[in-house]
């Protein structure tokens, strides 16, 4: 079981690194979109600071969705998915492996880039620590939920657009509590409740999403 998990994480990371890493594209999108906001809402520090948490979370959410539709697409087209769905290793574990690899190539870079961009948006330094912590707990949940969407749109017409319609409504709880955690930190209010709830989402997603993704993959392969 664990061997299967390790094998697939290693394989997917190797694939990601050799195929021109998505991480660069994801982080570039994240930086670019955040940089657009001052042009939109004006450079006044006060406004930017007030919306900084929201901007960072929304753009991170969109960025992590970018590379989702390729999560299973190549395996679906070259027949690897057939072998995976029927293999002795439980499909849920393999999906968890692929999601971990996806998080390492997208969630982690976003996490590292977030504080830098927080400076651009003039966020109060008190919020940086919680921002990174909230990203650490929130972005894996985004990858887990996104994997369900990616499996559902396999072989669909215009899968990319459809994926965002399916997945974005499910991202709202993470967005709400992620932003409120950072806002609370900036105003020196307790953040424990929000982080615990984000943790709750993570464990719920880690338990349910691989199973739902496996079900979606099995019916996609039929």
């Amino acid at each position, binding site marked *: 079981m664990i061997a299967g998990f390790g094998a697939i994480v290693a394989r997917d990371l190797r694939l990601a690194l050799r195929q021109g890493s998505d991480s660069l594209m994801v982080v570039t999108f994240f930086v670019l979109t955040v940089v657009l906001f001052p042009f939109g809402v004006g450079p006044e520090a006060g406004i930017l600071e007030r919306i900084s948490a929201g901007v960072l979370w929304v753009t991170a959410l969109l960025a992590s969705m970018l590379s989702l539709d390729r999560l299973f697409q190549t395996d679906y087209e070259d027949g690897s998915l*057939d072998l995976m769905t029927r293999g002795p290793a439980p499909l849920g574990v393999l999906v968890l492996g692929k999601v971990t690899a996806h998080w390492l190539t997208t969630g982690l870079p976003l996490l590292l880039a977030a504080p830098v961009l927080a400076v651009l948006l003039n966020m109060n330094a008190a919020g940086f620590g919680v921002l990174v912590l909230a990203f650490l707990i929130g972005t894996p949940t985004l990858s887990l939920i996104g994997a369900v969407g990616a499996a559902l749109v396999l072989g669909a017409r215009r899968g990319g657009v459809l994926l965002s319609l399916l997945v974005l409504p499910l991202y709202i709880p993470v967005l709400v509590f992620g932003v409120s955690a950072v806002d609370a930190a900036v105003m020196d209010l307790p953040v424990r409740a929000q982080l615990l709830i984000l943790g709750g989402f993570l464990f719920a997603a880690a338990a349910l999403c691989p199973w739902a993704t496996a079900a979606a993959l099995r019916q996609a392969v039929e």
Partner: protein
Amino acid sequence: MTDQAFDDAAEFAGRGLACIRGERIVFADLDFSLAPGEAILLLGPNGSGKSSLLRVMAGLLRPAAGALTWGGAPVAEDPEAHGGRSRYIGHHDAIKPVLTVRENVGFWSSLWSGDGSTATVQRALAAFGIAHLLDVPGRWLSAGQKRRVNLSRLLAAPAPLWLLDEPTTALDRATVAVVEGLIAEHRARGGMVVLSTHTDVALPGAKVLQMDDFTVPMDWAGLDAAEEALS
């Protein structure tokens, strides 16, 4: 490759199998049984359900009716165990262009048998005469070489039941002979093979399953008739 017989091989059978793809009944009321050492050759025109039957046997496709059993026990109860004791070779070769042959085969054999070592991979490739391709990335392989790398997975992670969907496409005469030899050796060790093909593959003593015998008129009238016959 390793010479010990398959102790977990048992009679693999299917009763009253039916398969629906889209609104079309591909086949209905199909029975088969396969004892250790035996082979089944699936023949029939395109679209008669050869691939669908193989995917049903591989557990990839849920049959609309009927059930598969392994040594008497229903397969559906423990699909992962069925995955462990059978290998499925489909139309696609599942080879990543960016990974080398060693990584491609090694990944699957470590997933299936926990042993993804280079030695195992090398032995499997040698059986197909492509040991020299060990560190060649997938994108440089020809169709025939990709097919041989795909087939070498059968040897890298041995399992009693082989489900081969037109394994000899894109293979030259010499390699087909190699495949026939390996199948014979596999059966000699108590393994079982189900193989669909358009070209002639020598499978001595194999049971022939004509898919045409199990097609059913497709429209709803036929559907109702098929149902009365089955209920």
